[in-house]
């Protein structure tokens, strides 16, 4: 293989490269087009065929940020995602550790429930959430939304963290126990530092899942807590489609997630294969 690579490109290699470029195009163009359109002057957005040549402008970002509720909605998204992610980790780390290490009655059944909750269609759980929050007068409240988001983030975090904890050799903790460390000390001093990478990846996924959520938000939030994924509809709801501010807001929603993904891309592939992101 290595000797062949040094020679000239064969026809097969060229075909493979064409396929590679095509794949990159197919999967990146729709995303890049949102970015490109967000900088297009208003009169250039609706041209047939769409054009790549224009003088970039920031007008749509200004319009979007001045639109009633958009800045607030991004702020709401941030509060809800950060708080629910932090709370999820506090609950999920010890739970995942005990699933990975302890043998107790019902462990198998409980693991299955965790998986089921992680995979259950949100629509299959939303109705009792809605009913409960409306009875408790918690619709359109941070308390209500964040508690419900825990049902997305906790089961998934437990499931993913468990695999990281299981990769840590149990002998390390046994050695610590021989040296007189309690189980809790061993967990704090040995397991947690070793699982740092896994905890970071899980945190990223919990955040992305909460940040991207739409279905729970559209039903359970209201004017005072509406996140950006719901607010963005306001640009396309009316008869006239305001593509400019829509794409600018889209870029603001995608921005944080894209930055995180670029920084941690290798780890993210593992998390994805564990079912980390929901469609």
């Amino acid at each position: 293989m290595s000797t062949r690579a040094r020679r000239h490109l064969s026809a097969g290699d060229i075909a493979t490269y064409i396929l590679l470029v095509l794949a990159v195009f197919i999967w990146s163009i729709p995303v890049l087009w949102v970015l490109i359109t967000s900088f297009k002057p208003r009169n250039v957005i609706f041209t047939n065929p769409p054009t790549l040549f224009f003088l970039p402008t920031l007008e749509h970002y200004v319009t979007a940020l001045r639109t009633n509720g958009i800045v607030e909605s991004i702020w709401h998204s941030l509060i809800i995602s950060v708080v629910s992610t932090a709370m999820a980790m506090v609950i999920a780390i010890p739970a995942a550790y005990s699933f990975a290490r302890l043998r107790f009655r019902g462990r198998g059944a409980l693991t299955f429930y965790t998986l089921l909750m992680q995979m259950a269609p949100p629509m299959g759980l939303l109705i009792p959430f809605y009913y409960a929050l409306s009875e408790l007068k918690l619709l359109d409240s941070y308390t209500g939304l964040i508690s419900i988001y825990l049902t997305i983030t906790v089961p998934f975090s437990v499931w993913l963290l468990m695999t990281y904890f299981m990769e840590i050799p149990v002998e390390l903790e046994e050695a610590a126990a021989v040296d007189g460390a309690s189980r809790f000390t061993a967990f704090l001093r040995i397991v947690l530092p070793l699982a740092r990478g896994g905890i970071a990846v899980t945190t990223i996924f919990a955040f992305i899942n909460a940040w991207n959520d739409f279905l729970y938000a559209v039903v359970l939030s209201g004017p005072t807590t509406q996140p950006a994924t719901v607010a963005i509809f306001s640009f396309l709801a009316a008869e006239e489609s305001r593509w400019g501010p829509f794409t600018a807001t889209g870029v603001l929603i995608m921005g944080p997630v894209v930055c995180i993904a670029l920084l941690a891309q290798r780890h993210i592939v593992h998390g994805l294969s564990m079912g980390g992101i929901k469609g």
Partner: protein
Amino acid sequence: MISPSILVLLLIATVPLLAQVAMAFYRLDLIGFRPNGFVGLDNFRAMKDDDRFWQSLSIMGIYTVTSVVLQLVIGLALALALFRPLRGQAVLRVALLLPMILAPVVVGLSWRTLVLTPNYGILDAFTQAVGLGSHPWLTHPDWALASVIAIHTWQWTPFAFLVFTASLHAMNPEPFEAAMLDGANSWQRFRDVTLPMLRATIAIVVILRTMIALRAFDAIYSATGGGPGTATEILNLYAYRISFTSLRLGYGASLGTILLIITALTSWLVFRFRQSR
């Protein structure tokens, strides 16, 4: 510290589930004149004559099967074709990662506007440029169902690709070399060596992708809203409309219960698969 967290998890994981199933046995209309209360199996009996329910179930079936098969075939073909030392792998990985981590709502809305709008969308401009013409991508029932399947396939084929690429890298090269020495051609090597070795990966991809397809809501809701009419109304969307547009929470809960049963069966398969490894 440990047992309280399991208790919280148990609460989080079971209470909504039980509440959901319990509500399926009640009539809970937020508008209308019929008295609310326990109705036994009435909601499930009503489903039997509800054409829209059966239609949404079959649309969900078409949507799920088609998109999973497409993801599997395209993902595997691409992984095999690109499985050789290439420059630009890193660019490909980033390009493939993006669709999966972006908010499905933003993806659905972007396709509805920037990609599929006749004349102004990039895909429509492309099909016009190559002589395939402009199409009512989201406004004609047949095109709309194909379009939402295409959006889902676009968003999730990268997953199949990445998983297959990873498992091709982890494979033992010896059987390939042996087959090569025995003079097997590339199709025979694929059919008799690669495919059997990938069987476990294929199974896990199919199961996981099926579960994600069964959860689909955001992208369809934002691209077509279930329309035109009910042409792309999968069971998730029908349950949503019954519960939060018609405000019939009990009947909505019974539709949700059907969804949960389908998911539970699929989850059980995943669980058994993990245990047996």
